[in-house]
Structure formats: structure tokens, C-alpha cells
């Protein structure tokens, strides 16, 4: 009743039994899952993102069967093979070493995805736990963690990554670890603020009044409500990690033993692809990065909408359609 001033929520109505109450828990789980899928399905952009990501994963897994050439072995290279235009033999042309760009592109998907998933897993674990501890437990340890997060939030990531990778040496694992341990601050901040507001909620107070301890409350009331947020955030962190990996590789800090999209661009950029007009060597790997990152971004965006549905409209909308009565000039019958 005090919510009358919020008509955008639509009049609240009592919810008499819908028969749903009779269902078994498993059936209700399926129903819930279905409702998330339905909500998600309404967002076309999310479906597109999911498809893009799925295709990239498929390509990465099936790389040996898809790629027309083996990127490791280089046959005899003649001058004509270097930066050869796209042709039937090389659908996307060749690169500065005379190798097939398409094959490198297919195998490069593996590096991007592995770095993206592994690094964001690390970020999620660190960020999620720091955020939960800082937000929920508070106290001295929580406060310290909060401060530390604030400091790491301010320190620019990429310069620090460059410095560390330059010094420890660019191996795939080093890159994953560095991206992972520097990418957690965003997650920590979001999880922290969510946990902070959740712990003030009345159902947490109720749990305390029952006699529940911190761990119980964390497990039963905080974590399940923070989880969707962590998942959504992780998807976005994957795209960020992939971007960061490609940037490091482009700057010459990629793992020299594996060929990533960023590394392909680095070679093309530093070895005259621009001046030779070999646009295919530049465009193809870049599109690869955009494909995967955009897929993740669209998916993350859709997940956010699904978990945290936004309002359909705001106060400045619907003015023109508000009067919808049939025209009745001068109708007076009262």
C-alpha cells in the first residue's frame, strides 16, 4: 500500500494459488531454468553473442580438422609466397613468413580462448572471494582488503602488465597469471558492494536472529544472490582478458612459441604489411579478436539483463499513446 506512488510497477495483485505450489522441487527447478532461458531468449543480441562464442569455441576445438595447413611446419618459401593475396590455395592469403593466414587464424582461436577463460577464472576466484570477504565480513581484515582493492583499482593495469611480463618473460602461463591476478579488481568491487547491501537486508538480520553464524549466512543468503553477478562479470572479464592478451602480444610480449592473433598482428605490423598493402594479414586476426570479444560482450550484456531486468520504460515515455479512447467529440450522456 505505500507503493502507490510507483505505478510503473503495475498494480500489485494478490497471488492466489496457481497450482504451481504443488510441484516437486525438481520440477520447479526446471521451471526456473526455463524462465531464465525464456528471458534470455527474448534478448536477441545475447543469442547472437552466444552463437558467436560457440562458433569460436568450435573452431578452436576442431582446429586440426578445419585448418587447411599445419601452422608449425613451413614448407619451402619462395618470394612469391610472402604476403600472397587471397586465392583458392590460401583463402585468406599468406603472411610475412609465407604461411597460410587462415590456418594461423584457426589455431590462434585456441590461444585467445585459453587465455581468456583461464585468466578470468583466476580473476573471478580472487575477485569473488576478496569482494565477499571485504563486503560481508567487514571488520579489520575486510577493511584492509577493501583498501587494497581501492589501490589496485587506481593503478593502471596495462603498464603494470607490460612491466611484469617484460621482466618475467613472456610465456603463455605467465601471461595468463599476470592478466588473472591484475584483472580481479572490477569483480571485487562489484561483489563487495553487492555483499555490503545484501548483508543489510532484513532476511540476513532474520537469519542472525535465528542464531545462524556468518558461514551459514554467507552460504545460504549471500552467495546464492551474488553468484549471478559473478557469472555475468566473469563473462565480461573473459572479453577483457582476451583484449589484454592480444594487446600484450601486439606489443611483442606474446608467447613466442604459440601464435596468437595479437602476435599475428604484431608480425604483420612490424614487418611491412601496411606498406605492402597486405590488408588480409591485418584484417583477419583483428576480426578474430573482435568476433570473440564481441560475442562475450553481447552474452554478458544479455546475462545482465536476464538476471537484473531493467524497467521497460521511464517517465518520459508513452505520452503520445496515453489517450487511446475512440474519438467521441462532445459525447455527453451523463
Amino acid at each position: 500500500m505505500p507503493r502507490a506512488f510507483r505505478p510503473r510497477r503495475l498494480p500489485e495483485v494478490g497471488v492466489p494459488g496457481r497450482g504451481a505450489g504443488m510441484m516437486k522441487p525438481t520440477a520447479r527447478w526446471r521451471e526456473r531454468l526455463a524462465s531464465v532461458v525464456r528471458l534470455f531468449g527474448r534478448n536477441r543480441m545475447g543469442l547472437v553473442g552466444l552463437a558467436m562464442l560457440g562458433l569460436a569455441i568450435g573452431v578452436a576445438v576442431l582446429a586440426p580438422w578445419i585448418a587447411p595447413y599445419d601452422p608449425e611446419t613451413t614448407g619451402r618459401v619462395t618470394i612469391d609466397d610472402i604476403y600472397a593475396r587471397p586465392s583458392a590455395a590460401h583463402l585468406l592469403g599468406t603472411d610475412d613468413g609465407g604461411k597460410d593466414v587462415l590456418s594461423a587464424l584457426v589455431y590462434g582461436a585456441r590461444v585467445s580462448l585459453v587465455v581468456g577463460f583461464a585468466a578470468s577464472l583466476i580473476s573471478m576466484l580472487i575477485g569473488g572471494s576478496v569482494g565477499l570477504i571485504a563486503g560481508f565480513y567487514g571488520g579489520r581484515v575486510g577493511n584492509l582488503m577493501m583498501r587494497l582493492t581501492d589501490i589496485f583499482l587506481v593503478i593502471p593495469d596495462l603498464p603494470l602488465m607490460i612491466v611484469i611480463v617484460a621482466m618475467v618473460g613472456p610465456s603463455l602461463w605467465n601471461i595468463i597469471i599476470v592478466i588473472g591476478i591484475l584483472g580481479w579488481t572490477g569483480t571485487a568491487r562489484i561483489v563487495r558492494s553487492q555483499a555490503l547491501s545484501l548483508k543489510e537486508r532484513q532476511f540476513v538480520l532474520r537469519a542472525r536472529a535465528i542464531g545462524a553464524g556468518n558461514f551459514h549466512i554467507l552460504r545460504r543468503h549471500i552467495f546464492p544472490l551474488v553468484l549471478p553477478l559473478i557469472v555475468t562479470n566473469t563473462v565480461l572479464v573473459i572479453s577483457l582478458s582476451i583484449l589484454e592478451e592480444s594487446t600484450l602480444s601486439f606489443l611483442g610480449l606474446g608467447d613466442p612459441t604459440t601464435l596468437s592473433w595479437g602476435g599475428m598482428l604484431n608480425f604483420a605490423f612490424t614487418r611491412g604489411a601496411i606498406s605492402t598493402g597486405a590488408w588480409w594479414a591485418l584484417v583477419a586476426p583483428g576480426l578474430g579478436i573482435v568476433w570473440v570479444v564481441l560475442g562475450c560482450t553481447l552474452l554478458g550484456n544479455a546475462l545482465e539483463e536476464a538476471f537484473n531486468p531493467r524497467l521497460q520504460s521511464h517517465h518520459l515515455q508513452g505520452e503520445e499513446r496515453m489517450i487511446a479512447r475512440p474519438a467521441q467529440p462532445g459525447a455527453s450522456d451523463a
Partner: protein
Amino acid sequence: MTGPDGSALPTRGPGVLLTVEGLCKRFPLPRGFIGTLTNRPTEAVHAIDGISFELQRGEIMALVGESGCGKTTTALTLMGLLEADEGTIRFNGEDVTHLGRSVEAPRATIAALERQSFRREPSFQPTLTMKDLRRQVQMVFQDPYESLNPRATVFETVAEPLEVHGLAGTRDQLLERVRRALEDAGLHPAEDYLWRRPHELSGGQRQRVVIAGALVLEPILLIADEPVSMLDVSIRAEILNLLDDLRTRRGISVLCITHDLGTAAYFTDRIAVMYLGRIVESGPTQAVLAHPLHPYTRALLSVIPVPNPRLRRKRMILTGETPNPVHLPRGCRFHPRCPIATARCAEADPAWREVTPAHSAACHEAVAPG
């Protein structure tokens, strides 16, 4: 009744359940950055400032006051969710004031408690722990929209207290106890509600689920903080009647915290009126309504709207708002807003007096009716 050490307790009748004496709770205000550096003395909000009352077994008592008078702080302190700065809380004769700090009792003690509840065996007086206290004192919160975890099913919510206290037993036993609690709270058939989530329930049903969650531990005291103020008028009565019912059938005592004197009048035995962290008047409901002793109670009564236009009467409207309990006024804390204040009121804090039997007030001017 006597306390655990054999000393006489200030009891009235055989069944004093809860005794609160001189309870104080202050919240220090943040001093700010400069304040901390210069070590400025810390100011504090005097949320509750020396309240005392008794609650009998099987009694429903209302603690009435406006927002900011400290009634919710009182509830949280009684629940052990806040620790009192001064004063004592005795539950069943035992001092439970600082249980929040104590270590948990060994499992054997808890097992003993399970076998012998206080109600059946008043002579048995083991040392209480916080966890035991939590089993016997349960709370119902104001906002049923907020006091349920939106992701948890009704079953999970109601079963949670049993799990926390390690009383879950087998799945079937658990289900049975949850079902019984739901039925007791007026949700029947319980099967219809077990697997619903809060958004599938109406406001009244949610509040019933909260009450079921409190009942499942079979408490002997229920602290209800504004149990109906967020509900539609047409369903308030069913919740209030449910509380009344629990008292009649189970002998559960209820401490109802509310701002609504009108509602309190309907189902409570006794009313205590709070103003600025203190109880200013307390007595049997009928006596307080018929002959309010304290001017603040009189004012509160006069402004409660009565749904009968023929009874429009002179309202006694106090000016201003309840002051901030940081700097308490000298003398009687009500005197700056009091319509009958005298010079004496600005000087001396009035003593707590029993004006007529069981009906007391803290006012210099309070006189027995007639």
C-alpha cells in the same frame, strides 16, 4: 519465583518471563577524519537510555512509540543482536545480557535442554547460551517483503532455523515439522506453499511464512517488530489474531513493537509508551487508553484518527518532531514539547512512579484519575 542463586526476583505473579532493568544502548557517532586526528570526544546517539519493564508469561505487551524513540533498538538488544551498554536483561530469571559474547555450551548441555524445556520444568535452570536463547526467543520483522530471502523456497526458509540448531533430523521429520509450523501459522494446506518462493506469495502469506519460521523452534517469547504496518488493512487483523491465538493456545508471550497505538489497543494486555529512549508510561491497556497519565500518551491518543466522523475531536498536536537523541534535554526529556510543562520539568527528571496499581508513569504532573 526465585533466581538461579535463590535470590528473590522482582516478580509480580508467578510468571515473569522477561525482566529488563536500566537497559542502555548508545551508538557512537563517527567523528570524521579531522575529529579522529584531533581526538575530538566521541558523541553518541542515546538510542535507549535506561528502560525497565517486565513481561509475564503468556502476556502480550506493546512497546509503543514514534520512529527514533528506540523501540527497534530495544528489540535488537533483547534479541542479543546488539549488546547492551548498561543494564540487565533477565530471561526466565537468568541474566542473558551479555550472552552475545559468551562461548557456546557443549553439546551435552544443549541435548539436556532439548529433553527438558523450561516451560514444563521450571525448576531446571541450566546456564543458558546465546544459541539456546535464540531458540526460545524469536523475532518477526516489519517488512515481509524484505525478511524473506527472495531465492529461498518457503520450505527452505522455515526449515532453516532447525538446520542452524542441528535439529533437522531426517528429511521426513524435517518436512513434518515444517508442515506443522506452516499449518500453525495459518497456511494450509501446507503442501500448497512448501515450494513457493516469496514472489509467489501475497504480503499476508509472507508474514505468515516469517511467523512459521519463528514458530518452528517452539519459542516461548516472540518479539514482533511492527508485524502489520506493511500489510494491507484488510489482512492486518488475521495476523494480529494469529498472534493472539498463539498466546492462547501455546502460552507464547509476545512483545509487540509498534507505532500504532490504535492497533495495539486491540490485542495487547499491557502497553508501554516510549519517548526518546525511555519508557514514559506503562500499564494495562484499558487503563492506559482510558486514563493516560503522561501528556505524551495523551497527545498520541488524541491524534490517532478515529474512523467515525461524528467523533471528530480536538487533536492535541505536539509541535516539531522528536528531537535527535544525541543531546538529550535537561530535566524531563519531554518538557520542550510538553503542553503542561512547568519550571520544575526543565530542572528535574521526573521519577518513575506507580500512580495507580500496575499503572506507572514518569511525569511530575501525573495523578490518579478521579
